[in-house]
């Protein structure tokens, strides 16, 4: 399953309003690029940019709750896998637990549908209040993590 990018970072980071801190951090990254600083330093400056804005922090808080939800889904899939030994049946059982209906037969299809159709349910049960840009990042991560951890 491929990774989709998180969308326009400036809209994402500025959803709480533009800040002098983020503008200053962007300048620091531009300087690090211009001065041909080591990749490690350039990335560390990028990490400072994440720390300077509220939306990335809020997304990282939400990541904890989404990971817990992913654990519950994987747990359900694992129980079904113990009974059937079939990764597709395991994914179907996990999908049914999330959206209370059948959402496909093949593992990959179920994972995609579970995240697409079940995202509102997952958000509600995890108590998340996130915007579209944050949802894009969180659902991409969830989809790929489920693909990695569900029985195959």
């Amino acid at each position, binding site marked *: 399953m491929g*990774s989709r990018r998180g969308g326009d*970072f400036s809209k994402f980071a500025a959803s709480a309003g533009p800040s002098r801190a983020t503008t200053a951090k962007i300048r*620091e990254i531009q300087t690090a690029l211009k001065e041909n600083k080591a990749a490690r330093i350039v990335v560390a400056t990028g990490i400072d940019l994440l720390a300077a804005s509220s939306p990335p922090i809020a997304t990282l808080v939400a990541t904890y709750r989404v990971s817990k939800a992913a654990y519950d889904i994987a747990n359900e899939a694992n129980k079904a896998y113990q009974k059937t030994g079939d990764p597709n049946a395991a994914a179907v059982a996990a999908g049914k637990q999330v959206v209370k209906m059948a959402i496909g037969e093949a593992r990959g299809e179920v994972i995609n549908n579970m995240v697409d159709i079940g995202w509102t349910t997952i958000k509600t049960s995890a108590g998340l209040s996130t915007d579209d840009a944050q949802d894009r990042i969180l659902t991409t991560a969830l989809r790929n993590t489920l693909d990695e951890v569900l029985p195959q």
Partner: protein
Amino acid sequence: MNEETLEKIMTANYSRVFKDMLLAAFKSDPKLTPSYLSEPIQRQRKIESEIEKQSNEMAKFLVGRLKEKRYLTKEPSDKELKVLIRETLHKFGVSK
């Protein structure tokens, strides 16, 4: 299924979110992206490889701290999570 599985899921998920946010910062910010894309392709690849490495390390560090605080079994508040997230970003960032 146990704490070890939760730790694995959380590390994988955090690593992806860190990576996606950092890539978005470099590749889809109207102010920053032109500077980034004007770098030689080889350097861009090097930075992206470093993003992947740092994202994995930040995820491992953060989940390790969550585990130390027993937050894998007991759900922390948003405030408690933010403290550890800021600590992680601070440790891996330039500003000390």
